[in-house]
Protein backbone atom coordinates (compact mmCIF):
# COMPACT_ATOMS: atom_id res chain seq x y z
CA UNK A 1 0.00 0.00 0.00
CA UNK A 2 2.71 2.40 0.97
CA UNK A 3 4.74 1.46 -2.02
CA UNK A 4 1.68 1.93 -4.24
CA UNK A 5 1.31 5.49 -3.00
CA UNK A 6 4.96 6.15 -3.60
CA UNK A 7 4.80 4.77 -7.10
CA UNK A 8 1.62 6.71 -7.88
CA UNK A 9 3.29 9.86 -6.78
CA UNK A 10 6.45 9.10 -8.65
CA UNK A 11 4.26 8.33 -11.65
CA UNK A 12 2.45 11.63 -11.26
CA UNK A 13 5.73 13.43 -11.10
CA UNK A 14 6.97 11.66 -14.17
CA UNK A 15 3.74 12.48 -15.98
CA UNK A 16 4.00 16.12 -14.93
CA UNK A 17 7.59 16.24 -16.07
CA UNK A 18 6.59 14.73 -19.40
CA UNK A 19 3.83 17.28 -19.89
CA UNK A 20 6.17 20.07 -18.88
CA UNK A 21 8.70 18.96 -21.46
CA UNK A 22 6.00 18.73 -24.12
CA UNK A 23 4.80 22.21 -23.20
CA UNK A 24 8.31 23.64 -23.25
CA UNK A 25 8.98 21.94 -26.54
CA UNK A 26 5.82 23.45 -27.98
CA UNK A 27 6.79 26.91 -26.81
CA UNK A 28 10.25 26.57 -28.31
CA UNK A 29 8.79 25.27 -31.56
CA UNK A 30 6.28 28.11 -31.54
CA UNK A 31 9.05 30.65 -31.08
CA UNK A 32 10.89 29.09 -33.98
CA UNK A 33 8.02 28.93 -36.42
CA UNK A 34 5.68 31.75 -35.41
CA UNK A 35 7.82 34.29 -37.19
CA UNK A 36 10.42 33.22 -39.67
CA UNK A 37 12.22 36.36 -40.73
CA UNK A 38 14.45 36.45 -43.77
CA UNK A 39 16.98 38.57 -41.91
CA UNK A 40 17.88 39.03 -38.25
CA UNK A 41 19.47 42.40 -37.59
CA UNK A 42 20.95 43.59 -34.30
CA UNK A 43 21.18 47.33 -33.77
CA UNK A 44 21.07 49.89 -30.98
CA UNK A 45 17.49 50.74 -30.00
CA UNK A 46 16.07 53.64 -32.00
CA UNK A 47 18.99 53.75 -34.42
CA UNK A 48 16.83 52.99 -37.50
CA UNK A 49 13.43 54.21 -38.65
CA UNK A 50 10.73 52.55 -36.55
CA UNK A 51 8.91 51.45 -39.71
CA UNK A 52 12.03 49.97 -41.33
CA UNK A 53 10.56 46.46 -41.41
CA UNK A 54 7.45 47.61 -43.29
CA UNK A 55 9.29 49.84 -45.74
CA UNK A 56 11.91 47.15 -46.45
CA UNK A 57 9.19 44.58 -47.01
CA UNK A 58 7.35 46.93 -49.35
CA UNK A 59 10.54 47.47 -51.33
CA UNK A 60 11.85 43.90 -51.46
CA UNK A 61 9.18 41.54 -50.12
CA UNK A 62 11.63 40.40 -47.44
CA UNK A 63 10.82 40.13 -43.74
CA UNK A 64 13.28 41.44 -41.17
CA UNK A 65 13.46 40.98 -37.46
CA UNK A 66 15.28 43.71 -35.55
CA UNK A 67 16.76 42.92 -32.15
CA UNK A 68 18.54 45.47 -29.99
CA UNK A 69 21.84 45.58 -28.22
CA UNK A 70 22.67 48.26 -25.66
CA UNK A 71 26.42 48.32 -26.21
CA UNK A 72 29.08 47.13 -28.62
CA UNK A 73 30.40 44.84 -25.93
CA UNK A 74 27.03 43.18 -25.51
CA UNK A 75 26.67 42.22 -29.17
CA UNK A 76 30.36 41.26 -29.35
CA UNK A 77 29.85 38.89 -26.44
CA UNK A 78 26.94 37.24 -28.25
CA UNK A 79 28.82 37.01 -31.55
CA UNK A 80 31.97 35.60 -29.93
CA UNK A 81 29.91 33.01 -28.08
CA UNK A 82 27.98 31.86 -31.16
CA UNK A 83 30.62 32.53 -33.80
CA UNK A 84 28.11 34.89 -35.39
CA UNK A 85 25.26 32.42 -35.69
CA UNK A 86 21.79 33.76 -35.12
CA UNK A 87 22.40 37.12 -36.77
CA UNK A 88 22.69 38.16 -40.41
CA UNK A 89 23.57 41.82 -39.98
CA UNK A 90 24.91 43.75 -36.99
CA UNK A 91 25.58 47.42 -36.35
CA UNK A 92 28.82 47.98 -34.41
CA UNK A 93 31.35 50.78 -33.96
CA UNK A 94 34.36 50.57 -36.26
CA UNK A 95 36.95 49.14 -33.81
CA UNK A 96 34.55 46.26 -33.23
CA UNK A 97 33.96 45.75 -36.95
CA UNK A 98 37.75 45.58 -37.17
CA UNK A 99 37.82 42.84 -34.51
CA UNK A 100 35.05 40.87 -36.24
CA UNK A 101 37.12 41.03 -39.40
CA UNK A 102 40.28 39.79 -37.61
CA UNK A 103 38.21 36.96 -36.24
CA UNK A 104 37.02 36.02 -39.72
CA UNK A 105 33.37 36.49 -38.75
CA UNK A 106 32.35 39.02 -41.42
CA UNK A 107 31.42 38.49 -45.03
CA UNK A 108 33.06 40.61 -47.75
CA UNK A 109 30.57 43.01 -49.30
CA UNK A 110 29.17 41.97 -52.66
CA UNK A 111 29.71 45.35 -54.35
CA UNK A 112 27.62 44.42 -57.39
CA UNK A 113 24.62 43.88 -55.10
CA UNK A 114 25.10 47.23 -53.34
CA UNK A 115 25.06 49.87 -56.09
CA UNK A 116 24.10 52.55 -53.53
CA UNK A 117 27.69 52.41 -52.22
CA UNK A 118 28.16 55.10 -54.86
CA UNK A 119 26.21 57.45 -52.57
CA UNK A 120 29.01 57.46 -49.98
CA UNK A 121 31.50 60.31 -49.75
CA UNK A 122 34.93 59.35 -51.15
CA UNK A 123 36.31 59.83 -47.60
CA UNK A 124 33.85 57.22 -46.34
CA UNK A 125 35.28 54.70 -48.76
CA UNK A 126 38.83 55.35 -47.59
CA UNK A 127 38.55 54.74 -43.84
CA UNK A 128 41.77 53.21 -42.53
CA UNK A 129 40.17 50.23 -40.77
CA UNK A 130 38.51 49.13 -44.02
CA UNK A 131 39.77 50.95 -47.12
CA UNK A 132 37.40 50.46 -50.04
CA UNK A 133 34.59 49.15 -47.80
CA UNK A 134 35.71 45.57 -48.27
CA UNK A 135 33.67 44.23 -45.33
CA UNK A 136 31.84 47.13 -43.69
CA UNK A 137 29.61 50.06 -44.55
CA UNK A 138 29.75 53.23 -42.45
CA UNK A 139 26.29 54.11 -41.12
CA UNK A 140 26.96 57.25 -39.09
CA UNK A 141 30.10 59.18 -38.24
CA UNK A 142 31.12 62.09 -36.16
CA UNK A 143 33.58 63.45 -33.68
CA UNK A 144 33.92 64.37 -30.02
CA UNK A 145 34.43 67.79 -28.58
CA UNK A 146 33.17 70.39 -26.16
CA UNK A 147 29.52 71.25 -25.76
CA UNK A 148 28.91 74.40 -23.74
CA UNK A 149 26.49 77.07 -22.66
CA UNK A 150 27.59 80.11 -24.68
CA UNK A 151 25.46 82.32 -22.42
CA UNK A 152 27.32 81.18 -19.30
CA UNK A 153 30.99 80.61 -20.16
CA UNK A 154 33.12 83.75 -19.99
CA UNK A 155 35.53 82.77 -22.76
CA UNK A 156 34.69 80.59 -25.72
CA UNK A 157 36.39 77.21 -25.21
CA UNK A 158 38.74 76.02 -27.95
CA UNK A 159 41.11 73.57 -26.23
CA UNK A 160 40.96 70.27 -24.35
CA UNK A 161 42.65 72.17 -21.53
CA UNK A 162 39.48 74.28 -21.11
CA UNK A 163 37.91 71.02 -20.00
CA UNK A 164 40.85 69.52 -18.10
CA UNK A 165 42.07 72.71 -16.41
CA UNK A 166 38.95 74.87 -16.38
CA UNK A 167 38.95 78.54 -15.44
CA UNK A 168 37.70 79.31 -11.91
CA UNK A 169 34.12 80.01 -12.99
CA UNK A 170 33.88 76.58 -14.61
CA UNK A 171 35.38 74.53 -11.77
CA UNK A 172 32.90 71.90 -10.66
CA UNK A 173 30.75 72.66 -13.69
CA UNK A 174 32.35 70.39 -16.26
CA UNK A 175 31.64 66.74 -17.04
CA UNK A 176 33.67 64.19 -18.99
CA UNK A 177 32.72 61.06 -20.90
CA UNK A 178 33.27 57.93 -18.82
CA UNK A 179 33.88 55.42 -21.61
CA UNK A 180 37.55 54.52 -21.58
CA UNK A 181 38.48 55.43 -25.17
CA UNK A 182 37.00 58.93 -25.03
CA UNK A 183 38.10 59.68 -21.50
CA UNK A 184 41.69 58.76 -22.41
CA UNK A 185 41.44 60.60 -25.74
CA UNK A 186 40.84 63.92 -23.96
CA UNK A 187 44.07 63.50 -22.00
CA UNK A 188 46.08 62.12 -24.90
CA UNK A 189 44.98 64.87 -27.31
CA UNK A 190 45.71 67.58 -24.74
CA UNK A 191 49.25 66.18 -24.53
CA UNK A 192 49.54 66.14 -28.31
CA UNK A 193 49.41 62.34 -28.60
CA UNK A 194 47.38 59.99 -30.75
CA UNK A 195 43.94 58.78 -29.63
CA UNK A 196 45.29 55.28 -30.33
CA UNK A 197 48.54 55.78 -28.38
CA UNK A 198 49.97 52.51 -27.08
CA UNK A 199 53.24 53.74 -25.52
CA UNK A 200 52.80 53.10 -21.76
CA UNK A 201 54.84 56.20 -20.82
CA UNK A 202 52.52 58.44 -22.84
CA UNK A 203 49.43 56.70 -21.49
CA UNK A 204 50.81 57.45 -18.01
CA UNK A 205 51.22 61.14 -18.82
CA UNK A 206 47.64 61.38 -20.04
CA UNK A 207 46.52 59.51 -16.93
CA UNK A 208 48.29 61.96 -14.62
CA UNK A 209 46.64 64.88 -16.41
CA UNK A 210 43.21 63.25 -16.12
CA UNK A 211 43.69 62.52 -12.41
CA UNK A 212 44.42 66.23 -11.87
CA UNK A 213 41.38 67.12 -13.96
CA UNK A 214 39.15 65.04 -11.70
CA UNK A 215 39.46 67.69 -8.99
CA UNK A 216 37.54 70.22 -11.05
CA UNK A 217 35.05 67.76 -12.46
CA UNK A 218 31.36 67.63 -11.58
CA UNK A 219 30.87 64.06 -12.82
CA UNK A 220 31.76 61.47 -15.42
CA UNK A 221 28.69 61.23 -17.60
CA UNK A 222 27.99 59.34 -20.83
CA UNK A 223 24.25 59.66 -21.00
CA UNK A 224 22.82 62.79 -19.40
CA UNK A 225 25.56 65.38 -19.91
CA UNK A 226 23.44 67.48 -22.28
CA UNK A 227 20.60 67.58 -19.73
CA UNK A 228 23.09 68.89 -17.19
CA UNK A 229 23.87 71.74 -19.59
CA UNK A 230 20.19 72.45 -20.10
CA UNK A 231 19.45 72.45 -16.35
CA UNK A 232 22.47 74.63 -15.65
CA UNK A 233 24.19 72.06 -13.43
CA UNK A 234 27.10 72.06 -15.88
CA UNK A 235 28.43 74.77 -18.17
CA UNK A 236 30.92 72.83 -20.30
CA UNK A 237 30.77 69.12 -21.10
CA UNK A 238 32.79 66.58 -23.04
CA UNK A 239 30.36 65.42 -25.69
CA UNK A 240 29.80 63.57 -28.91
CA UNK A 241 28.68 65.97 -31.65
CA UNK A 242 25.29 64.31 -32.16
CA UNK A 243 24.50 64.28 -28.44
CA UNK A 244 25.35 67.96 -28.12
CA UNK A 245 22.62 68.47 -30.71
CA UNK A 246 20.10 67.02 -28.24
CA UNK A 247 21.06 69.82 -25.85
CA UNK A 248 20.79 72.40 -28.65
CA UNK A 249 17.23 71.19 -29.31
CA UNK A 250 16.30 72.33 -25.81
CA UNK A 251 18.46 75.43 -25.52
CA UNK A 252 19.78 77.35 -28.51
CA UNK A 253 22.57 78.92 -26.44
CA UNK A 254 24.27 75.52 -26.35
CA UNK A 255 27.13 75.28 -28.83
CA UNK A 256 29.61 72.64 -29.97
CA UNK A 257 33.30 73.08 -30.75
CA UNK A 258 36.09 70.69 -31.73
CA UNK A 259 39.22 71.68 -29.76
CA UNK A 260 42.18 73.02 -31.70
CA UNK A 261 44.38 70.05 -30.70
CA UNK A 262 42.10 67.85 -32.81
CA UNK A 263 39.80 65.00 -31.95
CA UNK A 264 38.76 61.51 -32.87
CA UNK A 265 36.66 60.31 -35.77
CA UNK A 266 34.17 57.67 -34.70
CA UNK A 267 32.24 55.56 -37.18
CA UNK A 268 29.33 53.21 -36.55
CA UNK A 269 29.26 50.52 -39.21
CA UNK A 270 27.06 47.80 -40.66
CA UNK A 271 28.54 44.35 -41.31
CA UNK A 272 27.18 41.10 -42.71
CA UNK A 273 28.15 37.96 -40.84
CA UNK A 274 29.94 35.15 -42.59
CA UNK A 275 27.67 32.62 -40.85
CA UNK A 276 24.55 34.20 -42.43
CA UNK A 277 22.58 31.94 -44.71
CA UNK A 278 20.79 34.93 -46.24
CA UNK A 279 23.69 36.88 -47.65
CA UNK A 280 21.84 38.03 -50.77
CA UNK A 281 19.01 39.42 -48.66
CA UNK A 282 21.58 41.02 -46.35
CA UNK A 283 23.22 42.84 -49.27
CA UNK A 284 19.78 44.05 -50.33
CA UNK A 285 19.22 45.45 -46.86
CA UNK A 286 22.53 47.31 -46.93
CA UNK A 287 21.70 48.72 -50.33
CA UNK A 288 18.29 49.76 -48.97
CA UNK A 289 19.85 51.62 -46.01
CA UNK A 290 22.29 53.40 -48.33
CA UNK A 291 19.43 54.77 -50.39
CA UNK A 292 19.58 58.55 -49.91
CA UNK A 293 16.11 58.84 -48.44
CA UNK A 294 16.49 55.97 -45.99
CA UNK A 295 19.95 57.00 -44.85
CA UNK A 296 18.81 60.61 -44.40
CA UNK A 297 16.41 59.36 -41.70
CA UNK A 298 19.34 58.92 -39.29
CA UNK A 299 20.58 62.47 -39.87
CA UNK A 300 17.10 63.97 -39.49
CA UNK A 301 16.09 61.96 -36.45
CA UNK A 302 19.24 60.99 -34.56
CA UNK A 303 21.03 64.22 -35.53
CA UNK A 304 24.19 62.30 -36.40
CA UNK A 305 26.03 63.00 -39.61
CA UNK A 306 25.78 60.18 -42.13
CA UNK A 307 28.59 59.42 -44.58
CA UNK A 308 26.15 59.43 -47.48
CA UNK A 309 26.66 62.38 -49.84
CA UNK A 310 23.28 62.01 -51.51
CA UNK A 311 21.51 61.79 -48.13
CA UNK A 312 23.33 64.78 -46.62
CA UNK A 313 22.64 66.90 -49.71
CA UNK A 314 18.96 66.08 -49.46
CA UNK A 315 18.67 67.53 -45.95
CA UNK A 316 16.70 70.68 -45.29
CA UNK A 317 19.29 73.51 -44.87
CA UNK A 318 17.35 74.59 -41.76
CA UNK A 319 18.71 71.50 -40.01
CA UNK A 320 22.33 72.60 -40.23
CA UNK A 321 21.33 76.14 -39.30
CA UNK A 322 19.85 74.84 -36.08
CA UNK A 323 22.63 72.29 -35.53
CA UNK A 324 25.79 73.80 -37.03
CA UNK A 325 27.89 70.66 -36.53
CA UNK A 326 25.64 68.85 -39.01
CA UNK A 327 27.27 71.02 -41.68
CA UNK A 328 30.77 69.72 -40.91
CA UNK A 329 32.08 68.43 -44.25
CA UNK A 330 33.32 64.90 -44.90
CA UNK A 331 36.79 66.32 -45.59
CA UNK A 332 36.75 68.12 -42.24
CA UNK A 333 35.66 65.01 -40.35
CA UNK A 334 38.20 62.83 -42.10
CA UNK A 335 40.99 65.05 -40.74
CA UNK A 336 40.31 63.71 -37.28
CA UNK A 337 41.96 60.59 -36.07
CA UNK A 338 40.04 57.37 -36.52
CA UNK A 339 39.59 55.32 -33.33
CA UNK A 340 41.27 51.96 -33.94
CA UNK A 341 41.19 48.71 -32.05
CA UNK A 342 44.04 48.79 -29.50
CA UNK A 343 44.65 45.05 -29.30
CA UNK A 344 46.57 44.15 -26.14
CA UNK A 345 47.01 47.83 -25.16
CA UNK A 346 43.31 47.95 -24.30
CA UNK A 347 44.35 46.53 -20.95
CA UNK A 348 46.64 49.52 -20.25
CA UNK A 349 43.75 51.87 -21.04
CA UNK A 350 41.41 49.98 -18.73
CA UNK A 351 43.89 50.07 -15.92
CA UNK A 352 44.59 53.78 -16.42
CA UNK A 353 40.84 54.48 -16.34
CA UNK A 354 40.46 52.42 -13.14
CA UNK A 355 43.28 54.42 -11.57
CA UNK A 356 41.73 57.71 -12.64
CA UNK A 357 38.34 56.77 -11.28
CA UNK A 358 39.78 55.42 -8.02
CA UNK A 359 41.91 58.54 -7.44
CA UNK A 360 40.79 60.97 -4.76
Amino acid at each position, binding site marked *: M*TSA*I*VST*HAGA*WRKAAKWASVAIGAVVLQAGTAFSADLVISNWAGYMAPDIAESFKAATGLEIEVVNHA*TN*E*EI*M*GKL*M*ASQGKGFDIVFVSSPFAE*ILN*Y*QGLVEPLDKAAVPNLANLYPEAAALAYDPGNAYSVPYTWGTTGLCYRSDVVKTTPDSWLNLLQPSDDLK*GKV*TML*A*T*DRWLMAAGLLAKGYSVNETDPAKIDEAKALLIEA*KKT*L*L*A*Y*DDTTFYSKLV*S*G*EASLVHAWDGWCNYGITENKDIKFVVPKEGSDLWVDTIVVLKSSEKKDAAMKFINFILDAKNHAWAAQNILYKVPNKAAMESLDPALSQQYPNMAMSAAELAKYELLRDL*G*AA*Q*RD*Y*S*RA*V*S*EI*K*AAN
Partner: protein
Amino acid sequence: MTHRASHPNLLVLPAVAWLVVFMLIPCLMVLFYAFLTRGIYGGVDYIFTFENLARVFDPLYAKIFLTSARIAGLATLLAILIAYPAAYAICLAPKKWQPVLLFFAVLPFWSNYLIRTYAWIVLLNREGLVNNLLKSLGYTGEPLSLLYSEGAVITGLVYNYLPFVILAIYSSLSRLNPELLEASRDLGANALTTFWRVTLRLTMPGIAAGGVFIFVLSIGNFVTPAVLGGGRFQMIGNVVYDQFLTANDWPFGAALGMALIVIMIVLLLLQARLTAHFAGERREANDGA
Protein backbone atom coordinates in the same frame (compact mmCIF):
# COMPACT_ATOMS: atom_id res chain seq x y z
CA MET B 1 5.56 5.14 6.03
CA THR B 2 8.64 5.77 3.91
CA HIS B 3 6.61 7.88 1.52
CA ARG B 4 6.24 10.58 4.15
CA ALA B 5 9.97 11.07 4.09
CA SER B 6 10.14 11.11 0.32
CA HIS B 7 7.53 13.87 0.00
CA PRO B 8 9.52 16.76 1.44
CA ASN B 9 12.40 15.72 -0.79
CA LEU B 10 10.23 15.97 -3.88
CA LEU B 11 8.70 19.24 -2.77
CA VAL B 12 12.06 20.84 -2.31
CA LEU B 13 13.22 19.67 -5.71
CA PRO B 14 12.19 22.75 -7.75
CA ALA B 15 13.95 25.07 -5.30
CA VAL B 16 17.08 22.91 -5.31
CA ALA B 17 17.06 22.70 -9.10
CA TRP B 18 16.63 26.47 -9.25
CA LEU B 19 19.57 27.04 -6.89
CA VAL B 20 21.79 24.59 -8.72
CA VAL B 21 21.06 25.99 -12.17
CA PHE B 22 20.98 29.68 -11.34
CA MET B 23 23.26 29.92 -8.33
CA LEU B 24 25.68 27.05 -7.96
CA ILE B 25 26.60 26.55 -11.61
CA PRO B 26 27.09 30.28 -12.31
CA CYS B 27 29.25 30.61 -9.19
CA LEU B 28 31.35 27.64 -10.29
CA MET B 29 31.67 29.22 -13.73
CA VAL B 30 32.91 32.43 -12.12
CA LEU B 31 35.43 30.39 -10.16
CA PHE B 32 36.52 28.55 -13.31
CA TYR B 33 36.86 31.71 -15.43
CA ALA B 34 38.97 33.35 -12.73
CA PHE B 35 41.78 30.93 -13.61
CA LEU B 36 41.68 31.42 -17.38
CA THR B 37 43.42 33.90 -19.68
CA ARG B 38 41.76 36.93 -21.23
CA GLY B 39 40.90 36.54 -24.89
CA ILE B 40 42.14 39.63 -26.72
CA TYR B 41 38.69 40.30 -28.16
CA GLY B 42 36.59 39.31 -25.19
CA GLY B 43 35.72 35.86 -24.00
CA VAL B 44 38.42 33.64 -22.55
CA ASP B 45 41.33 31.56 -23.75
CA TYR B 46 41.55 28.20 -22.04
CA ILE B 47 45.03 28.72 -20.62
CA PHE B 48 45.33 28.19 -16.87
CA THR B 49 46.81 31.03 -14.81
CA PHE B 50 46.93 32.46 -11.29
CA GLU B 51 47.59 35.94 -12.66
CA ASN B 52 44.00 37.19 -12.27
CA LEU B 53 43.87 36.25 -8.62
CA ALA B 54 47.25 37.86 -8.04
CA ARG B 55 45.95 41.07 -9.63
CA VAL B 56 43.10 41.23 -7.11
CA PHE B 57 45.77 42.00 -4.50
CA ASP B 58 47.37 44.70 -6.63
CA PRO B 59 47.43 47.90 -4.49
CA LEU B 60 45.11 49.67 -6.97
CA TYR B 61 42.34 47.12 -6.60
CA ALA B 62 43.02 46.54 -2.92
CA LYS B 63 42.48 50.27 -2.44
CA ILE B 64 39.21 50.12 -4.37
CA PHE B 65 38.14 47.18 -2.18
CA LEU B 66 38.92 49.21 0.92
CA THR B 67 37.03 52.24 -0.41
CA SER B 68 34.05 50.02 -1.19
CA ALA B 69 34.22 48.46 2.26
CA ARG B 70 34.37 51.90 3.87
CA ILE B 71 31.37 53.18 1.89
CA ALA B 72 29.41 49.98 2.56
CA GLY B 73 30.43 50.06 6.24
CA LEU B 74 29.28 53.65 6.70
CA ALA B 75 26.01 52.87 4.93
CA THR B 76 25.53 49.86 7.24
CA LEU B 77 26.22 51.86 10.38
CA LEU B 78 23.92 54.68 9.35
CA ALA B 79 21.17 52.28 8.31
CA ILE B 80 21.29 50.47 11.67
CA LEU B 81 21.20 53.78 13.55
CA ILE B 82 18.10 54.79 11.60
CA ALA B 83 16.44 51.38 11.42
CA TYR B 84 16.76 50.39 15.08
CA PRO B 85 14.70 53.26 16.52
CA ALA B 86 12.25 52.89 13.63
CA ALA B 87 11.79 49.17 14.28
CA TYR B 88 11.54 49.86 18.00
CA ALA B 89 8.84 52.46 17.41
CA ILE B 90 6.92 50.03 15.22
CA CYS B 91 7.12 47.40 17.97
CA LEU B 92 5.80 49.87 20.52
CA ALA B 93 2.86 50.82 18.32
CA PRO B 94 -0.50 49.10 18.93
CA LYS B 95 -0.57 45.60 17.43
CA LYS B 96 -3.13 46.46 14.76
CA TRP B 97 -1.01 49.37 13.49
CA GLN B 98 2.20 47.39 13.19
CA PRO B 99 1.44 45.78 9.80
CA VAL B 100 0.44 49.19 8.43
CA LEU B 101 3.66 50.79 9.64
CA LEU B 102 5.72 47.93 8.20
CA PHE B 103 3.85 48.35 4.95
CA PHE B 104 4.92 52.01 4.82
CA ALA B 105 8.49 51.02 5.59
CA VAL B 106 8.67 48.72 2.56
CA LEU B 107 6.51 50.91 0.30
CA PRO B 108 9.52 52.35 -1.61
CA PHE B 109 10.22 48.83 -2.89
CA TRP B 110 7.17 49.11 -5.05
CA SER B 111 9.09 51.31 -7.44
CA ASN B 112 12.15 50.41 -9.44
CA TYR B 113 15.64 50.72 -7.89
CA LEU B 114 16.91 52.92 -10.73
CA ILE B 115 13.95 55.27 -10.50
CA ARG B 116 14.40 55.59 -6.76
CA THR B 117 18.08 56.35 -7.31
CA TYR B 118 17.45 58.91 -10.04
CA ALA B 119 14.92 60.59 -7.78
CA TRP B 120 17.84 61.59 -5.56
CA ILE B 121 19.36 63.44 -8.51
CA VAL B 122 16.19 65.47 -8.78
CA LEU B 123 16.42 66.24 -5.07
CA LEU B 124 20.13 66.90 -4.68
CA ASN B 125 21.40 68.50 -7.87
CA ARG B 126 22.56 72.08 -7.88
CA GLU B 127 19.30 73.20 -9.45
CA GLY B 128 17.35 70.60 -7.50
CA LEU B 129 14.61 70.68 -4.89
CA VAL B 130 16.87 70.89 -1.85
CA ASN B 131 18.82 73.84 -3.23
CA ASN B 132 15.63 75.55 -4.38
CA LEU B 133 14.12 75.08 -0.96
CA LEU B 134 17.20 76.64 0.64
CA LYS B 135 16.95 79.52 -1.82
CA SER B 136 13.31 80.12 -0.97
CA LEU B 137 14.26 80.11 2.72
CA GLY B 138 16.60 83.01 2.02
CA TYR B 139 19.92 81.23 1.38
CA THR B 140 21.85 83.35 -1.11
CA GLY B 141 25.27 81.68 -1.46
CA GLU B 142 26.43 79.37 -4.22
CA PRO B 143 24.13 76.35 -4.58
CA LEU B 144 25.37 73.43 -2.48
CA SER B 145 27.12 70.60 -4.32
CA LEU B 146 25.30 67.75 -2.65
CA LEU B 147 25.37 65.35 -5.56
CA TYR B 148 28.30 63.37 -6.98
CA SER B 149 29.90 62.97 -3.58
CA GLU B 150 30.59 60.06 -1.26
CA GLY B 151 27.80 61.37 0.94
CA ALA B 152 25.33 61.11 -1.94
CA VAL B 153 26.42 57.51 -2.63
CA ILE B 154 25.99 56.56 1.03
CA THR B 155 22.62 58.31 1.17
CA GLY B 156 21.45 56.36 -1.86
CA LEU B 157 22.58 53.03 -0.41
CA VAL B 158 21.00 53.67 2.99
CA TYR B 159 17.76 54.83 1.43
CA ASN B 160 17.48 51.85 -0.89
CA TYR B 161 18.32 49.13 1.63
CA LEU B 162 16.88 50.59 4.83
CA PRO B 163 13.60 48.62 4.62
CA PHE B 164 15.53 45.32 4.76
CA VAL B 165 17.29 46.45 7.92
CA ILE B 166 14.07 47.65 9.53
CA LEU B 167 12.38 44.32 8.77
CA ALA B 168 15.31 42.28 10.12
CA ILE B 169 15.49 44.25 13.36
CA TYR B 170 11.72 44.33 13.74
CA SER B 171 11.47 40.56 13.48
CA SER B 172 14.07 40.24 16.22
CA LEU B 173 12.48 42.89 18.46
CA SER B 174 8.95 41.59 18.09
CA ARG B 175 10.02 38.16 19.32
CA LEU B 176 11.59 39.60 22.44
CA ASN B 177 9.98 38.18 25.54
CA PRO B 178 8.49 41.17 27.50
CA GLU B 179 8.86 39.22 30.74
CA LEU B 180 12.61 39.54 30.41
CA LEU B 181 12.36 43.33 30.40
CA GLU B 182 10.08 43.22 33.44
CA ALA B 183 12.52 40.90 35.18
CA SER B 184 15.37 43.27 34.43
CA ARG B 185 13.46 46.19 35.90
CA ASP B 186 12.34 44.18 38.92
CA LEU B 187 15.97 43.42 39.56
CA GLY B 188 16.70 47.13 39.75
CA ALA B 189 18.07 47.95 36.30
CA ASN B 190 17.04 51.30 34.87
CA ALA B 191 15.64 51.65 31.36
CA LEU B 192 19.03 52.37 29.78
CA THR B 193 20.71 49.41 31.46
CA THR B 194 17.80 47.18 30.48
CA PHE B 195 18.07 48.32 26.88
CA TRP B 196 21.82 47.96 26.83
CA ARG B 197 22.12 44.62 28.63
CA VAL B 198 18.91 42.89 27.61
CA THR B 199 17.13 44.34 24.58
CA LEU B 200 20.18 45.18 22.50
CA ARG B 201 21.97 41.94 23.26
CA LEU B 202 18.97 39.80 22.48
CA THR B 203 18.23 41.62 19.23
CA MET B 204 21.83 41.38 18.07
CA PRO B 205 20.95 38.61 15.58
CA GLY B 206 18.47 40.97 13.90
CA ILE B 207 21.04 43.74 13.75
CA ALA B 208 23.60 41.31 12.35
CA ALA B 209 21.19 39.96 9.74
CA GLY B 210 20.14 43.44 8.60
CA GLY B 211 23.70 44.73 8.76
CA VAL B 212 25.19 41.88 6.72
CA PHE B 213 22.37 42.28 4.23
CA ILE B 214 22.97 45.96 3.54
CA PHE B 215 26.76 45.57 3.68
CA VAL B 216 26.82 42.76 1.13
CA LEU B 217 24.38 44.53 -1.19
CA SER B 218 26.31 47.79 -0.88
CA ILE B 219 29.87 46.55 -1.34
CA GLY B 220 29.02 45.01 -4.70
CA ASN B 221 26.71 47.79 -5.84
CA PHE B 222 27.62 49.57 -9.05
CA VAL B 223 24.48 51.51 -9.97
CA THR B 224 24.47 53.91 -7.04
CA PRO B 225 28.13 54.99 -7.31
CA ALA B 226 27.68 55.46 -11.05
CA VAL B 227 24.49 57.50 -10.74
CA LEU B 228 24.83 59.39 -7.45
CA GLY B 229 28.63 59.43 -7.36
CA GLY B 230 28.75 60.69 -10.93
CA GLY B 231 31.30 57.97 -11.64
CA ARG B 232 33.78 59.83 -9.45
CA PHE B 233 33.73 57.09 -6.85
CA GLN B 234 34.87 53.77 -8.11
CA MET B 235 33.53 50.83 -6.12
CA ILE B 236 34.52 47.25 -6.74
CA GLY B 237 31.20 46.56 -8.48
CA ASN B 238 32.05 49.23 -11.04
CA VAL B 239 35.45 47.64 -11.68
CA VAL B 240 33.80 44.24 -12.22
CA TYR B 241 31.26 45.85 -14.57
CA ASP B 242 34.06 47.55 -16.52
CA GLN B 243 36.05 44.33 -16.85
CA PHE B 244 33.14 42.62 -18.55
CA LEU B 245 31.69 45.51 -20.52
CA THR B 246 34.58 47.70 -21.59
CA ALA B 247 37.92 46.07 -20.82
CA ASN B 248 36.95 42.69 -22.29
CA ASP B 249 38.77 41.06 -19.40
CA TRP B 250 36.31 38.42 -18.23
CA PRO B 251 38.82 36.36 -16.20
CA PHE B 252 39.88 39.36 -14.12
CA GLY B 253 36.25 40.39 -13.66
CA ALA B 254 35.56 36.82 -12.54
CA ALA B 255 38.49 36.94 -10.10
CA LEU B 256 37.17 40.17 -8.56
CA GLY B 257 33.71 38.60 -8.42
CA MET B 258 35.19 35.60 -6.60
CA ALA B 259 36.75 37.92 -4.06
CA LEU B 260 33.33 39.50 -3.46
CA ILE B 261 31.73 36.09 -3.07
CA VAL B 262 34.40 35.08 -0.54
CA ILE B 263 33.83 38.26 1.47
CA MET B 264 30.11 37.57 1.43
CA ILE B 265 30.52 33.95 2.57
CA VAL B 266 32.82 34.98 5.41
CA LEU B 267 30.33 37.61 6.58
CA LEU B 268 27.41 35.20 6.39
CA LEU B 269 29.34 32.61 8.40
CA LEU B 270 30.18 35.22 11.02
CA GLN B 271 26.55 36.26 11.14
CA ALA B 272 25.45 32.62 11.53
CA ARG B 273 27.89 32.14 14.43
CA LEU B 274 26.77 35.35 16.07
CA THR B 275 23.14 34.33 15.70
CA ALA B 276 23.85 30.90 17.17
CA HIS B 277 25.72 32.50 20.05
CA PHE B 278 22.93 34.93 20.87
CA ALA B 279 20.25 32.34 20.32
CA GLY B 280 21.94 30.36 23.08
CA GLU B 281 21.88 33.41 25.33
CA ARG B 282 18.27 33.99 24.49
CA ARG B 283 17.33 30.44 25.41
CA GLU B 284 19.18 30.75 28.69
CA ALA B 285 17.48 34.05 29.42
CA ASN B 286 14.08 32.61 28.63
CA ASP B 287 14.74 29.52 30.74
CA GLY B 288 15.81 31.77 33.59
CA ALA B 289 12.69 33.87 33.23
